[in-house]
């Protein structure tokens, strides 16, 4: 595996993580969080953890995000930080 790709994705992951916790809109945070999960899943797939990557793709990027959006729908998008 090329460590350059690995490093690139890792950087993206960190950027996504920072963005997800800093964006002032919960729906945006949900989407960024989905992106974060998906990049993470990619990373794991690169590392050969296919089952875990599969799970993360369906859970982290999928169902979790849906739950998140549903919760935001029931509450509010507003976030002060």
């Amino acid at each position, binding site marked *: 595996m090329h460590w350059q790709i690995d490093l690139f994705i890792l950087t993206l992951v960190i950027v996504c993580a920072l963005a997800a916790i800093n964006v002032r809109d919960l729906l945006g945070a949900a989407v960024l969080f989905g992106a974060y999960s998906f990049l993470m899943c990619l990373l794991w797939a690169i590392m*050969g*953890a296919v089952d875990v990557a599969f799970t993360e793709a369906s859970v982290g990027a999928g169902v979790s995000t849906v739950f998140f959006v549903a919760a935001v729908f029931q509450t509010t998008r507003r976030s002060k*930080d």
Partner: protein
Amino acid sequence: MEQLLQEIVAKYNYWLYIILMMIGLYAIISKNNLIKKLVGMNIFQTAIILFFISISYKEQATIPIIRNAHGPGHVSPEAIQATAYMNPLPHVLMLTAIVVSVATFGVALAIAVKVYGEYETLEEDEIRTRIREKIK
């Protein structure tokens, strides 16, 4: 210098997981919004999962599914080399950990919805003022 570079290549994965984890931890502790804290919580957990997956990685090894297991020309059990496949155990553990984290996330969101129903806000400081008002 050479050594340092080697060290970096050997360990950067571990370092980045630490950074990621600290981002999550910081969000849990310092964020004001209840759901933001949950995002931080998830980042924190995935960082740990990343760490475990890093443990399982082996150079020159492939995914932990035995090739040519069945059918014609299948591999004989004695020929399977441990070094040829990734360590499956951390994968298994992390499958469980992912499940646990999504379950916790679901329950926490449900509780957050309940909190919102009570105070009509998700900001901690605003909730605190509401509680103080209520006591008065």
